[in-house]
Each structure stands twice: as C-alpha cells, then as structure tokens.
C-alpha cells in the first residue's frame, strides 16, 4: 500500500539554493527571487524516487514530504 504524499517547503528554512527546481523542473518553479513555488497536488505515482532524491539534496533541509492525509 502506498500513501499519497505532497511536496512542501518550509519557507523559514529555504535559502533559495534552487536545487529542487533543478531536479524537479516539472514540479517546482522558482519565483523572481529564486524561491520555490510548489503546487498543492499530490506527488504522482512513479515520481517518489525523484522527489525523495530532491528532498535529500536540499542543502537547508527545507524541502519536505508530507503525507496528504495529515492535517493542515
């Protein structure tokens, strides 16, 4: 059983390194100041590996995965 997850950023931790947009260009775009804009949609099946790799690569650990069924 796989749980659906969404990609989130902790805006207080993000320092606009931009690796997430580099690694996940279809899921993350950057604003004019270099900070990621991520849609609210759940990560589609088959992309979990890429997404987890991007989460691990974030230099400030600002990129997170959140289970969609959790509150807020």
């Amino acid at each position: 059983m796989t749980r659906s997850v969404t990609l989130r950023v902790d805006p207080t931790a993000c320092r606009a390194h931009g690796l997430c947009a580099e690694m996940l260009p279809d899921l993350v775009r950057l604003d004019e100041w270099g900070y990621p804009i991520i849609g609210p949609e759940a990560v589609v099946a088959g992309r979990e590996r890429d997404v987890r790799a991007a989460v691990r690569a974030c230099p400030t650990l600002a990129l997170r995965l959140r289970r969609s069924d959790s509150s807020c």
Partner: protein
Amino acid sequence: MTTTVPDLRPVEVCAPRLLAGWFATGAAADHAAHVARYGPVPVAAFRHRAGRAALIETVARAGLRGRGGGGFPTARKLAAVAAARGRPVVVANGCEGDPASLKDRALLEIAPHLVLDGMVLAATAVGAREAVLCLAEGGLQVARIAAALAERSGTDPVRVRVTEVPHRYVASEESALARFLTRGDARPAMTPPRPSQRGVHGRPTLVDNVETLAHLALIARYGDEWYRGCGTAGAPGTTLVTIGGAVWHPGVYEIEHGTSLASVLDEAGGPAAPARAVLVGGLGGAWLGTPFADVAFTPEDLRAAGAVGGGVAALVVLPRRACGLAETARVLRYLAAESARQCGPCMFGLPAIADDMTKLAVGGGGPAVLERLRQRLDVVRGRGACAHPDGATAVASSALRVFADDVEGHVAGAPCGSAGLRTWLPLPGVGT
C-alpha cells in the same frame, strides 16, 4: 447546569459589557471595584474534570471567537489544549502589534482584572497551573498589570506572570509568542505543530487574545445565554473596536456585533469629512469602498462586503480628498519593514510590492508596474510561515479593487490629487 454563579449581579445585557465599569465610573477598575461589580472569579464552580468540561461547553455554546484577528472558535482551542498530552500553559496575548488597533491596551488599562480573571478561568478549563500575560515591551500596561497582580496576590489558584515582548508586527502571532517564551525569539515558527499541540517548552499552549479572555470571564459568570443575548446568531456578543482616521473622536469603543458601520462610526462622532473608504481589520485587512454605511459589523458581513482578510476589529476612515493608493503604499512599506525576514517570499516580495504600489501612487510607472504588481501579489500570497504576507497582499489587492478609478488615473499619468496632504494611517516610522 451548575456553571452559572447565582449570587452575582448581572451586568448590562448589551454594550458596554467589558467597558461597563469604565462607563459607570470613568475610572480604571481596581480589584475592589472589579469584585464589587462582577463578584470574585468563579473558579470554584469549574474545578475537577466535570467542571472544566462544563466551562469549555459553556464557551462553545456562547459561540465566543478569538478577538486577536484570527476569529477561531475559542472553545475548540480550549478543548484541543485540554486534550493534548502534557501540562498546558496559558498565554494571554496583549502585545497588539497592529498600529491601527488600541483596544487591547485600553482594555488592559480600564479592566485589567477581567483579563486576569479570564486567564485564571482559561487555565482552569485546560488544567494549566501557569499563565503568562504577554505585553508590548515598555508599554504603560506593564506597570498597570503589575499593580493589578499585586492586588490579587495569593488569591488565584494559577500562577500568573507578565512577560514583555519586543515590538514587532508579527511578534503577537501565536507561534511567535510560543517561540519567544521558549527561546527568546519572537518570530513566527513553521506550523504545524500548532502551539495548542506543542508550544511553550513543548507543552500544549493556549494562546488567546486578552479581549477574548475578558469575554470568557463574563461568560463563566453569566452563562452562554446571557452572552448570546446581544449581537447576531453568527457573531454573538459585543466587540471592542478601534476607530481612527477621519472621524471626530478616534478611540476605542465597545459595540454590539451586527451594528451597521454607519452606527459604529457614529460612536466616534461620525466621519469628520465625506468618506472615500474605510480600512477594516487593521493594516493587513482590506479597504471597503462606499457605500459601506449599511454593512453590519460582523466578521461574516464584512467578509461578504469585501473585507476578505478578516483581522482585528479596527476601522480607519479615509476621507475623499486622500489618495487610497498613497496610503496603501505607506501601509505596505510599513508591513515590508516589519517582516521577520525569515521567509524569502515575504522578505523580498513585500518590499517589491510596496515599491510597485509606491510607483503606482507617485505615477509614471505606466501599465507595466500595475501588471507586475498584480503578478507579485499572486506569487507572494500564501507563501510565508505565518499570515504576514497574506495580510499585505490582501490590503494591496483591496486597494487595486476599491481605488480602481485612482489606479486608472495614476497609470495614465494623472497627478495625484492628494499629494502633499496629511496622511491618515497611524504608521510609526513611515513618512509620506
């Protein structure tokens, strides 16, 4: 029901409730005057598990909602904190960071014991032994509350202390207060977890506005039916409101929920000049254009009329001769400077938005500036850890909507008719 205390004299059915003592005597209430009016704090009626549950249930039936700007149902917060693991802490928020609001300061000076009663009762309801009253650093209220606490020393079952919080617009956001009391850093934290789950030193923390707690102190005494005997079904009771700008008698007033905006402004002597718009909800609120006279003062009615941001109960009247865009640009510069500078979209986006609005107000930017401003409002909204950027985008968006004529004129290069005139919004540190 055993939750109402029988031998207390009922206070006035409708407004003023919180300010009843002030209206009767013109003096701030010391503890003796407070007890003579309202009786002692009825903690004994709410002891033990059943009593605590009954108090929360009474607050739920009263329909009390938070008065700090969020409007969250108070009983739900009480229940969440009471149910969370660990010994809870109660935090009363009297910081009042929004310069358009003075009502918490007024309440703390006029009726400090209602706030302290509310803290003791809220602590009783959630099973806390400790309550902290957060006040703006260096404010007059600090000495006032210290004196009030000395008057009650030893009589409360809860330890109440005061903490001064350095001024910052976002410092009174509830996660910022919890973080300040834990680590001395008054900046908002990423939520979840909410303070109700994990707040001060990891303990479940009830953060309530001081006015909310004062209402709670009256509900505990007179019951939910009494509370609902005034106001509307959706917004029962009364509310303190700060009225400023172009009115004859700016100040803090207590009004019944559902009163028309015209009648609310009449409390302050009415508009001192023909009104162009009114800012509702503080600096992170929204402008309402004319005609607003018949809009009822409840969160729902104000939202339906266009004050989508919610926010604290504050009204600032803008006269016709003022420029709404110039005033909004000043608000945005203030909010940009008050960013906690933690989140990029807020740290960089707010100054950019303020700059666009300033260019728009000054004129000469042309349609490109307007287009860029609209885009930036969309990009920045919802991307902070707290609601600070959302307040800024809400007030900016409402300005573009309400002052659409001025936008058109300024974009076309027409000179601003109000240039060089006085400004209307109270913004410490911001020039014209």
